[in-house]
């Protein structure tokens, strides 16, 4: 074996050991991220809690569904919409169908942006919606989730952690895939 080849092999071995050591050093300790969670509408952080009324006047809070500690909660899909928003109208039937299919496994909540209670009610009736439509009178929920474009859909796991922020119309296949992922966790 020539000297230059031996030097190259030694260099490669050195880099392999160095790289492996760095990988080992930067590995994630179990549950390390949980202690750093803050309430924010970004992926990996706790979803901001809220309490608003649905079209029937019932009080709905995020913490009614998810659990921040322990077991027993269920995932939540927050869909921000408005009646004037074309893409929202396209995707609304998908939410309805999947809310029935995953009735006891996931909570789908439709959060309106800036419209009257009458408009929200009419929208729900015209699409035959059975999942809760929330009346966000002062856009507090929209603001808390930084919703600047409609539709926006936010996937929250059963511990209340935001798993994905999806901007734009969502197809039924994508919605089902995301819900399946949340349910199977």
């Amino acid at each position, binding site marked *: 074996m020539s000297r230059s*080849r031996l030097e190259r092999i030694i260099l490669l071995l050195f880099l392999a050991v160095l*790289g492996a050591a*760095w990988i080992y050093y930067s590995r*994630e300790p*179990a549950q390390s991220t949980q202690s750093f969670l803050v309430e924010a509408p970004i992926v990996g952080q706790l979803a901001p809690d809220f309490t608003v009324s649905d079209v029937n006047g019932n009080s709905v809070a995020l913490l009614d569904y998810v659990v921040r500690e322990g077991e027993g909660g269920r995932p939540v899909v927050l869909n921000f919409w408005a009646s004037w928003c074309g893409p929202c109208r*396209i995707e609304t039937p998908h939410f309805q169908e999947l809310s029935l299919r995953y009735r006891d496994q996931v909570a789908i909540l439709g959060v309106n942006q800036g419209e009257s209670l009458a408009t929200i009610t009419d929208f729900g009736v015209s699409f035959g919606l059975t999942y809760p439509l929330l009346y966000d009178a002062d856009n507090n929920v929209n603001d808390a989730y930084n919703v600047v474009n409609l539709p926006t859909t936010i996937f929250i796991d059963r511990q209340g952690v935001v798993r994905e922020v999806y901007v734009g*119309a*969502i197809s039924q*296949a994508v919605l089902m*895939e995301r819900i399946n992922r949340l349910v199977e966790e």
Partner: protein
Amino acid sequence: MFPTISIGPLAFPTAGLLTILGVYVLLSVVERAALRLGQDANRLYSLAVTTVVAGFVGARLTFVLLYWPAYRTDLLSIVWPLNSGFNVWGGLFVALAAGFFYGRFHQLAPWPTLDALVPGVIVGLIIVSLIDFLAGPGFGKLTSAPWGITQFSVRRHPVQIYEILVGLLALFSWWQFHRDRLFAGQLFLLATALYSGGRLFVDAFRENAWIAANGIHILQVICLILMLASLYGLGQLAEKTAVNRA
């Protein structure tokens, strides 16, 4: 941070806009790199277009096949909306296969072709990091460093910016050596080694890394293998070139 870019009353999805821009820049870079290396720019441009289109279609079709029951009742949804519903691995496989068969069909020499393609690939990866920074779900670990960025009152490593800097370093290496390359494949292997080595280092600062059950960052393992393979290839080609010259 910026899921949409507002122009007057219109709001455009940042990721979509940057993807279109990124493909345009990527193709331009491949064309210019081919010209600088004295290769057939039209042929390499076509190769890049074929690979990008095949990757896009492959990623979509893989996703559709995986979730066929949801598409069966609404065939139009296969082609619209397209703002999500892509399988990265399916796309990568189809893109690589398309590029391979295109190269074989047109009898392109592998190493010179890869030398010309690699700046485009790195530009593509830089754009992916930029999209992730502006409109993606990625974010860095907590830090008190002065260059940390504040997200919802918490300072974090701007890990995507680190990734972009690594990409720029790899591009710089290509630029430095492209006039005086000693052998075909040198530019590709050197840029790959630098980029994968850099990503191996900076992925440690990513909070939402792709993690194996034992806490190991999977991307770091892939990068280590790529870096070592590239360096080994560099050594082999250099030795072969020296023997041929002697």
